[in-house]
């Protein structure tokens, strides 16, 4: 699959936009989902699932670990998985 980090970030933003009350355009790429944005687990799980389905990557371990994650960090993680496939 030929996809850029910017395209993945856009996908994450559009998913967040459907799930969050806050104006997603005001969220920076580096803000942490839980620690800074107070995003709940329902939203995070859906963002991961949407990315899994869209890019055909497995994020099960990342979901389990639930490490601090921002739009930028998640997009890069997915991009690395896509190019290593």
């Amino acid at each position, binding site marked *: 699959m030929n996809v850029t980090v910017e395209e993945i970030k856009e996908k994450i933003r559009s998913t967040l936009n459907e799930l969050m009350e806050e104006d997603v355009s005001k969220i920076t790429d580096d803000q942490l989902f839980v620690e*800074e944005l107070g995003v709940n687990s329902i939203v995070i799980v859906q963002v991961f699932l*949407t990315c899994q389905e869209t890019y055909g990557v497995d994020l099960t371990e990342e979901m389990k670990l639930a490490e601090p994650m921002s739009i930028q960090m998640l997009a890069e993680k997915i991009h690395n998985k896509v190019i290593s496939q």
Partner: protein
Amino acid sequence: MDYSKVYDITIGNFQGEHLITWFKNGEKHIAGGKEYATVTDSVAAVLEKKFSGIEKGTWIGLKSNNHYLWLAVFFGLLKIGYPVLLLDANASEDSLEAFTVQSHMKAIVTDTPESHGDMLNVSMAELEEFAESFPENVCWESRIAFCTSGTTGMAKIYVFYADAIYAQCINVSDYLLHDKGITGTRNEGGVQANPMLLTLPLRHCLGFGVTLAFITAGYPIVLPAKPGIFGMADTCRDEGIWFFCSVPAIWKGLMRIAEARFGDSGPESMKKLMGEKLTFGCSSGARLDPAAAKKLMGTGIYIVNGWGMTETSFVTMGPLKDDPALDYVGIFYNKHSAVVIDTETGDVKSEGYGELAVNGRSMHTSTLSDGKEVFRNKDEYFRSGDLAEIRNGRLYFKGRCKSVIISDSGENIYPEELDTHFSFLDELVEQYATVGYEDEPVLFISSKSAAEFENSTAFERIVEADLRLPLGKRITRIFVTDKPMPVTSKGETARFYLLGFLEKNRADFRELSVKK
């Protein structure tokens, strides 16, 4: 009474052709009552062989996410004589160890193979390979147990005997079949044409109770085709779901999706999202805040709210539209009786304001401690720890008088457990305590280095420890002060006074995000 009676009214005598629908590798599967009874027997036969070395009456853990075989394993274990401990599929190693100490369980059924010391393990994947058979020695058990989703090892296990669950199935299914408000929302075609979507975990008292009551009444259940909140909405729409029960966080999420996609969460938008046939819903498992309650009433779905606890099972239920008060949680049903206890005088009253205490046939019978049952006095009302008002037989939820925090995802968070988790702070700060603030856990700290707390070792270790907690239990904020915080007569930090203390001394506190 043993669990054969519960099995008979749910699966054993299920008359419809459609009991359970599930999806695997994109394919849809449907089983009727008879087919599922065969599956249950076959799974029981496999388990009987696997656990042949374990004495009957020994607790066996069921630690699995919702799965089409979940009910087969549950009833299969009971049928061959093992009481079942219902565990969170994501339970931590610490909490699992604590549950083992309390119950003396000897085996565990999990989604995928797991290793837990000497404990025998069977995975759902293994069980899916069953061949049609029947257990050799049927000897139904009479006990199951619900567990708290412990984080740090403070296990709480509540035992329910078959008569309590049987009564709940009968009482709730009766309500589902005969309440005019509910039956008025049904689509044409009788019970079989009105399926419920199973979104709540079956190991939790709410998901378990609702599902068994629906099956008792003859309604089909459908497992989501895909995980996640989008998967719930899609399955609801594609499968013509009539009833959807979930926690406030999910309802709020669904309304938000409707707003983002269609501009609002009114009836037409919700129909586009969830399908035309979704006309009945239930919000439970956590407090429904007034703003969300008001919004839910505008969806056009007939929404009932309720109150119950793991220890008590379902106690009240009522449609939101029946009462203008947004803290209304229904009328007493399921044959429970309730009183309120005046928090000042201790007087017990049948109506008025105070701590809610309940009793009835569907209550837990005992708790487990070191493998033994500690029985509850059945004549005593169980004190809920919730503040409530009973007015004309209606219940209004007013807040909590116990320290437990209930997030809007329905997660019970025990501050004492989190205090244990952060107990390394004993040597690093003057005082600390976890408190529920806006339905989330926050850490209150008194430290001489409050002014630069984010640069301290204590802060660094809090961030590290926080990451070891499950997502829904993490602390996202710290309130730190260099002033002493209130203490009890025993010299412990007075958890219950901290929110008031914060309010009065806001200028003395710094609020920090828990991040590196």
